[in-house]
């Protein structure tokens, strides 16, 4: 025969099939290896000029080689942001609205913070603040009780108080175990640490969209975990469905990315709707089916003002029917107690390894001990907490009605919501074109003409254009007519 079979001599001599395939494979393997080693390192820093390459090392003794580079993963972090959410926040900082001194300033509707119950907090703090920092067990003040190293995962007293508080605001149907808790410096580090612990670099979380725009930063910046949006639509009032989850999951699998969990906010941020017991069960079943984690961000659990009852994931998983270890809950005091400056959050996980790993990582973002002391006395003051929570809910409800009514009169509807410090406003009637571009134009107009900073839906990865998140809890009652007037003017000018 004329045909040339590779290495036929060898093959015929000995092993046949085995050697015949082994040898090309080996060669191929070494080729791969060779290619891999020779592959040039990824271009590390496109922003740097290549000016330095012409100067060589040879002459550089004692000479500058040029600019030293930062790591390639820090480059995107250092770059100015392109998310409308952060652009808006930055813009407000340059020209903030003030009722008296700067009436032409930009009104902040983009930041979920609440000043509704500051009077109550103010009273408590003025009475108890110093005492709570200075107190110690034997009544005498000991400076070392606040300035020395303490366990990074939080003082046990604080964890107990936190557990109590959480079960209180979640309706008392669940109890939380302090040993499953890790206290973090706010919800942001809590999310990041969980992402670090549950997924490896390049893995992904499913996340029903629209979602909180800060997640992008919190999760992707350092951990390298991807977020895959599961699009929800206004026709379902932006509630996630299992079929959508399933579909996105399969698509992700097909693309080769490994999905390690599903992350969602309940009450949802930015829409403000509350997930029903059934939906939570469905999500859990789905996660069980795919063997992935469930991260429930319940940071607004105490800011529920509607008729709908809030159900914690802890309650569903507590029924005993499900495997607990895949469920992780994030909570924080920034929203419900309106003390974001305290930077107090918590990871509640049923997975022992996650708790252990998170405890170790708290080395980098633990809560300062004096703050822990204040929080312990704040959270254990049950009378105050009761009073506060009732007022908090009532005042959000009132403000919500006021705000939504105002918009309604302008012909601008809002999505139905039952929790959170914001509402999800449908401004599609003001769009010049029904597209992402149109929405960003409107955002820009709101910001520079109407001087209002609201978060556009595209920043939240909403699939339908024209939705905006407006936080109303930092507004005074008399601000609302000002806002409505500004929007009305904008609407008129755009319609005419």
């Amino acid at each position, binding site marked *: *025969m*004329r045909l*040339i*079979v*590779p290495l036929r001599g060898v093959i*015929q001599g000995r092993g*046949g099939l085995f050697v015949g395939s082994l040898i*090309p494979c080996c060669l191929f*393997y070494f080729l791969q290896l060779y290619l891999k080693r020779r592959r040039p390192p990824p271009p590390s820093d496109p922003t740097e000029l290549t000016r330095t390459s012409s100067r060589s090392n040879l002459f550089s003794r*004692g000479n*500058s080689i*040029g*600019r*030293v580079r*930062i*790591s390639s993963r*820090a480059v995107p*972090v*250092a770059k100015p942001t392109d998310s409308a959410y952060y652009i808006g926040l930055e813009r407000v900082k340059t020209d903030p609205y003030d009722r008296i001194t700067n009436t032409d300033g930009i009104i902040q509707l983009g*930041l979920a913070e609440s000043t509704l119950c500051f009077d109550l*907090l*103010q009273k408590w703090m003025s009475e108890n603040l110093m005492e709570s920092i200075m107190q110690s067990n034997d009544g005498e003040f000991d*400076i*070392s009780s606040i*300035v020395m190293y*303490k366990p990074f995962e939080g003082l046990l007293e604080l964890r107990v108080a936190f557990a109590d508080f959480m079960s209180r605001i979640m309706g008392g149907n669940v109890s939380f175990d302090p040993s499953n808790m890790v206290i973090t410096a706010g919800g*942001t*580090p809590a999310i990041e640490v969980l992402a*670090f612990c549950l997924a*490896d670099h390049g*893995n992904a979380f499913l996340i029903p969209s629209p979602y909180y725009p800060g997640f992008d*930063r*919190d999760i992707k*910046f*350092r951990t390298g975990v991807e977020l895959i949006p599961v699009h929800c639509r206004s026709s379902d009032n932006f509630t996630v469905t299992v079929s959508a989850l399933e579909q996105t999951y399969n698509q992700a699998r097909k693309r080769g990315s*490994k999905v390690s969990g599903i992350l969602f906010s309940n009450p949802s941020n930015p829409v403000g709707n509350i997930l029903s017991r059934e939906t939570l069960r469905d999500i859990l*079943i789905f996660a*069980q*089916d795919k*063997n*992935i984690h469930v991260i429930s961000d319940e940071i607004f659990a105490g800011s529920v003002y509607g008729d709908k009852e809030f159900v914690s994931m802890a309650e569903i998983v507590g029924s005993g029917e*499900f*495997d607990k270890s895949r469920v992780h809950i994030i909570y924080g005091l920034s929203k419900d107690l309106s*003390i974001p*400056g*305290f*930077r107090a959050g918590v990871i509640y996980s049923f997975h*022992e*390894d996650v708790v252990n*790993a998170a405890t*170790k990582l708290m080395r*980098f*973002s*633990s*809560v*300062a*001990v*004096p*703050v822990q002391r*204040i929080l312990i006395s704040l959270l254990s003051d049950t009378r105050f907490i009761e009073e506060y929570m009732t007022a908090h809910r009532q005042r959000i409800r009132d403000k919500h009605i006021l705000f939504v009514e105002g918009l309604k009169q302008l012909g601008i509807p809002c999505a139905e919501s039952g929790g959170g410090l914001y509402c999800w406003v449908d401004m599609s009637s003001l769009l010049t074109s029904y597209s992402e571009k149109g929405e960003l134009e409107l955002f820009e107009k709101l910001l520079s003409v109407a001087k209002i900073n609201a978060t556009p839906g595209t920043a939240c990865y909403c699939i339908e254009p024209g939705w905006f998140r407006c936080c109303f809890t930092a507004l005074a009652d008399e601000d609302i007519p000002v806002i409505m007037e500004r929007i009305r003017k904008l609407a008129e000018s755009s319609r005419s």
Partner: protein
Amino acid sequence: MTHTGIYRSRSGTADSETSVGSGGGGGGGTTVMRVIVPLQGVVQGRGGLVLGSVIPCAFFYFLQFYLKRNRRDEPEPDPANQNFASSPGSEPNNLGSSSLTQSELTGLSRSLSRVSPRNSGGHVSVSVRANSLHKVGDSPYHVGVKRVEEDPYDESGNPEGIIELGLAQNRLSSDWVSDENTIGLSLSEIASYEPCDGLMELKMVVARLMSEATKNVVSFDPLQLVLTSGAASAIDILSFCLADSGNAFLVPTPCSPGFDVDVKWRNGVEIIHVPCRSSDNFNISVTALDRTFSQARKRGVRVRGIIISNPSNPMGSLLSREKLYAIFDFARERNIHIISNEIFAGSIHGDEEAEFISIAEIADTEENLDKERVHIVYDLSKDLSFPGLRAGAIYSFNENVIAASKKLTTLSPVSSPSQHLLISTISKPEFIQTYVKTNRQRLKRIYSEFVKGLKGLGIECTRSNGGLFCWADMRGFISSYSVKGEIELWNKFLNIGKINVIPGSCCHCIEPGWFRFCFSNLSEKDVLVVRNRIRKSLYNM
């Protein structure tokens, strides 16, 4: 090639005997060889050499691909649940932990009593990198600290407890902090969102404090400061910004036992130790740095920076101006970053001639481009005995690093109450001055007391001018000149003498027999107790 003829001649008879290759119908009946060449039919039919190698290669490639994909799913066992078998190839009655095996075994699922019929998933796994965190924490450093937590010494309450000489915290001047503490907090100030990288007010105070530490030779620009929650997170953030995963930093050893954790845990940056020796008085040698750098490069590791501690931890020595220039030149020549860890800058207790020189002073004499490689880590906790407040700082000359770390501080922020506490405590210039002065005096007194005590026991320490510790030479007391001997002695200290110290191996010292004693936790009375306990552990009396 000579065989070809023979095979052809036998083609007629051998046809029926071929068992493989019949799949390649295109090849026709000429497949005759006794030898079985993979996919012979195809090969003969068409491309010969090319196809003959491409096809096995392709199969091999897919096999690799398959293995790779499976590997990601399969080794999900986490160490805590060893009773689940992890290999998918295990016997059928083994309850696999991966969902794959599990679904094949639906018939058996009843044996898992806790699993509902619907439950197809096994135990859910945490990420590989989180699992790797479990392994750390077993070093003597962590063990010792834990033991002290369980059984802490107290002069009156628990005189038998373990004395902490391991943890670098300063209790000497705590009274000052509380005396002067006129804290005025107002709610709207502390409760709302505030810049996570620190209030300008606080930055100004910190900058002043840092200047004070250099005796006002250097003035620090508050705009270049980023406040973080503690020095640990400052180093964590800097490692993220300066190096990519898999890159490395050079670290002269002995070094702070915390670096490993801060640099590696989250960022995947490696540390390459550059050992210093007792014969050089543990001085950093630039030649050694250079050699290590070249070795690393040969191994294909990219070195992105060098981390130095000044005053050094654990030795407490200060870097001279010449040394700093030499290190700076080295960094410039190799175009790498310098991270200078100056968390003990305010705790200088040496003689008058012992002068602390910040790397910022060196950087200030350089042109702008070169400054950019300098980053300083500062910590309010050590100098102000405030570790519970968790306030540290990055001072960088690099705009990009400042911008990036500002954003990253949302992930490890200083809370506003802490910020305001700090502002109100340390904003008075006279307070800073008196505090720093008093702190130095007290450190000096306790240091000389402590060293004298050790000397009485025949233990020599290296000369320490700063920091909260001394570095004691116990080579004469270890049973064998090895890490094992050192750990044995450490165990003796912990169990017999009931004191917790840091063995040199934790600081990656290459010479066994050195120990770090942190003395700033002690009162003068305690020094005596410690001395007796050391004697007890060393001489069994």
